[in-house]
């Protein structure tokens, strides 16, 4: 069965790697063979890579609000980040733009937040094997499953914290595991990433998955990297991961509906957004 808490997930990972505990729970949950599950995850990994490789900087979304930023980021000189950091930002933008332009992407955990995991993992392809990166996807999915069970991964229910926040928490756990962090460190990384984005509202201009969604994928990715670095440095959290997830739910419930994907509040309610929607 799917884990109902991070604590239960960590207990299951006492005698085996985290990714394997999550894989086993999937096999039990869906009643399938290991090869079936691995193949399914591999297809998702390949689809993430294919979306980024097929990115076309000339394309624009139907509304014309987004497109081309991934290409701009690739071509620009770097000022503050290293090569990995630049690729992370570019990959998040590219995947988000592919999604907005009706290209094939992997909802991870949603279409609006589909850029976060590819952003942190795809630029690591030279350093890690595909097998290792697919295992990292298992870790991400396992944490995501607990978030979906205890809180929400829907912007309409929980605001953007439930989409970009969840993706960022999942990515932070995956990155921590990838560098040999303990399961507890993965949980700490997830908790830090989530608490840093608590309260993030879902305020899409015109109700479309474009502005500010595409650029928020960058924040989700960068936040995940920072949280993973902290966890790997031995920095923990005061509030345990399960309680942070429960908090995300409570905060989501407290958000007014205007800030939950209705396109009525936040950036969507600005004079510029209203003018764009009318034109």
């Amino acid at each position, binding site marked *: 069965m799917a884990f109902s808490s991070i604590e239960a997930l960590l207990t299951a990972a006492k005698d085996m790697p985290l990714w394997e505990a999550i894989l086993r729970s999937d096999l039990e949950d*869906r009643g399938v063979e290991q090869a079936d599950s691995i193949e399914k995850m591999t297809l998702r990994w390949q689809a993430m890579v294919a979306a980024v490789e097929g990115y076309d900087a000339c394309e624009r979304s139907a509304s014309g609000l987004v497109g081309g930023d991934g290409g701009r980021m690739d071509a620009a000189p770097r000022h503050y980040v290293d090569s990995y950091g630049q690729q992370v930002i570019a990959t998040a933008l590219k995947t988000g733009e592919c999604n907005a332009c009706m290209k094939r992407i992997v909802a991870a955990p949603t279409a609006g937040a589909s850029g976060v995991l590819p952003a942190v993992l795809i630029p690591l392809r030279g350093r890690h094997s595909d097998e290792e990166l697919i295992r990292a996807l298992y870790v991400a999915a396992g944490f995501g499953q607990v978030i979906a069970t205890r809180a929400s991964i829907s912007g309409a229910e929980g605001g953007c914290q439930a989409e970009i926040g969840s993706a960022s928490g999942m990515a932070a756990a995956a990155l921590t595991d990838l560098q040999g962090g303990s399961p507890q460190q993965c949980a700490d990384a997830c908790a830090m990433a989530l608490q840093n984005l608590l309260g993030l509202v879902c305020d899409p201009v015109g109700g479309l998955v474009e502005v500010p969604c595409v650029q928020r994928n960058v924040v989700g990715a960068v936040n995940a990297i920072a949280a993973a670095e902290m966890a790997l440095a031995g920095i923990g959290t005061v509030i345990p991961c399960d309680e942070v997830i429960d908090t995300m739910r409570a905060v989501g419930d407290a958000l007014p509906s205007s800030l939950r994907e209705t396109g009525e509040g936040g950036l969507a309610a600005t004079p510029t957004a209203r003018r764009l929607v009318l034109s």
Partner: protein
Amino acid sequence: MNLFEIMGPIMVGPSSSHTAGAVRIGFIAQRLLGGRPDWAQLQLSGSFAATGKGHGTDRALIAGLLGMAPDDVRIPMSHHIAAKEGMEVELGHIELRGAHPNSVLLHLSRADKRLSLQAASLGGGRVRVEAIDGMEARFSGESPTLIIRNEDRPGMVGEVSAMLGYHNMNIATMQLYRAHRGGLAVMVLEFDAPVPLMLRQTLEHLPGICSVTYLELEGT
């Protein structure tokens, strides 16, 4: 939610509810109709009507009616493909009172067969059929599903469930609907395992059964 509902689905963007879910609704509709419609009228309601255009909801529904899956890269071109294949499409808006915000009412025809279907996209690509031909009938299409129309008279439910039990088919869920007493009734049955063709044909020949429609979708 299972692991691959979190890491997935693989889909054409931009929205799991307004795009992937819409493809799935179209796909279920064409399966229930028995193939690609010759004529389709799509009436979008609520958020589908308000933001559907920017999310490609119309293109997604048409793609589903053409038999495409939510990850088919031809979804953005579905209007063009429908025109080429001779499927006539009419688009409009409707206010479906009390319906889920992401709802659509489809009227379809294929040769002499007609079907109307109301469905909602619930988020994450999951959908629910709400009504068929104006009669309430709720199901997700996630499990093998039988939609049986029958005369509303005593013993029908017993006969159907006895027949299924005799063939060792375990019913996961069962719902009953009817238009009015003594009129036409609908049974919606969901199963854990596929329902064999032979059994479906046997059910169809039971006295009092008007039609048996079967839906079995492959998971993505």
